[in-house]
């Protein structure tokens, strides 16, 4: 029996990170889950508003949670780390601050229902670890990823602040454990929880290029062939900003950056056309061919 799970896509997974969404759907399907796009979802605002004196930036994420409740569901799945963080933090906030929840409900007075804090926000990595289990993941592998060494990059938003973290905030292992279940070798990336530069990629390419240079070089020194991520902004910064990293640091060597779902789909035996490698700035295909995986 297929389990339909309400899924909040967010804007980027319908645009430049379509390959993340497509491969996540394939992977979920292997375990009989169907990602069911949330009805009338709206952009969550990407970044969680940190001000205490104004709830306006929390309305967009809470409205999405209200949609989940409206269709009679109890949880919502996210893929993008930023969506996950924004929705889960807003949820945590209104659960703790009932007075602010009332204000937000008052702002959403045109809705047919009110929000009450009842929805759970989960990330695909949690579903894989806690509900499906990495043993099942291991059993589903048709093409073990032996021959490649993977660095897992978490960034900020799956882990901070602690009340929304999907794993140990300073020493997470969920992505490494997942990669081992796929048969890959893993390394412990020392900068795996350090920010990639985030939205500074708009006004300060140079700053982000230097972060990219640092993260990729640390991964290389530790012996990695590629880096995985779960955030379309991390992906853009670590992949596309390698161009500027190379201009600023002549010794820089390119490294492919993949969504963890792309490697899962590869290990589960899906064909190359379905893995969405075309939009990558640093093409992962030569490496995967060389290691006999494509």
């Amino acid at each position, binding site marked *: 029996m297929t389990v339909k799970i309400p899924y909040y896509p*967010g*804007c*980027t997974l319908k*645009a*430049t*990170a379509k390959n993340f969404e497509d491969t996540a759907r394939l992977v979920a399907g292997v375990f009989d889950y169907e990602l069911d796009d949330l009805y009338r979802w709206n*952009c969550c*605002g*990407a*970044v969680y*508003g*940190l*001000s*205490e*004196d104004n709830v306006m*930036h929390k309305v967009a994420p809470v409205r999405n949670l209200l949609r989940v409740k409206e269709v009679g569901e109890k949880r919502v799945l996210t893929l*993008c780390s*930023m969506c996950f963080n924004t929705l889960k933090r807003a949820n945590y906030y209104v659960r703790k601050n009932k007075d602010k929840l009332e204000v937000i409900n008052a702002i959403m007075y045109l809705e047919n229902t009110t929000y009450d804090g009842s929805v759970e926000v989960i990330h695909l990595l949690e579903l894989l670890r806690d509900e499906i289990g990495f043993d099942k993941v291991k059993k589903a592998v048709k093409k073990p990823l032996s021959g490649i060494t993977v660095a897992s990059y978490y960034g*900020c938003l799956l882990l*901070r*602040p*602690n009340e929304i973290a999907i794993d140990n*905030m300073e020493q997470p292992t969920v992505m490494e454990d997942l990669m081992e279940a796929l048969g890959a070798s893993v390394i412990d990336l020392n900068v795996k*929880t*350090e*920010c990639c*530069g*985030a*939205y*500074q*990629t*708009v*006004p*300060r390419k140079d*700053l982000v290029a230097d*972060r990219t240079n640092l993260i990729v070089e640390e991964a290389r020194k530790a012996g990695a062939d590629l880096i995985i991520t779960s955030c*379309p*902004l991390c992906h*853009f910064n670590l992949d*596309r900003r390698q161009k500027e990293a190379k201009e600023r640091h002549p010794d820089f060597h390119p490294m492919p950056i993949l969504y963890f779902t792309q490697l899962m789909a590869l290990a589960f035996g899906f064909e190359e056309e379905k893995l969405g490698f075309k939009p990558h700035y640093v093409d992962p295909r030569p490496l995967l061919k060389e290691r006999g995986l494509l």
Partner: protein
Amino acid sequence: MGVLKLTREKVQNVDLINRISGQNVYDCYQCGRCTSGCPSADEMDIVPSQTMKFLQIGEVDRVVESNTPWVCLACLICSVRCPKGIDIAAIMEALRLVKLRNNYDFVHPNRIPQEDLEELPPIALVSAFRKMTP
């Protein structure tokens, strides 16, 4: 160097930062942990722990006019590591907001080059506008 003077106006400015951020800048005891983990500290005119000190002595203008809040990444490393439980990232946000609420654009949507607009993902633009436009 003169004697440190905390005028009423300066105290009111600090109160504003505390109110917007929901934090108390006077809690900071200058351990420096926020700065040691900050990935942007090298880019900052005034590093995070110094920012806290300037706020405590009422020098709000000085930090508001520095580049510090505008090279902050809102990555929350400082906030989760502060032994006093201060959400320094929220203070950085308050420092941005005092300008943004006066209609200041740090990023000008109409001045982003066309070739950048074509390749930047929505998530980059939405988050940059949220943090750096009114």
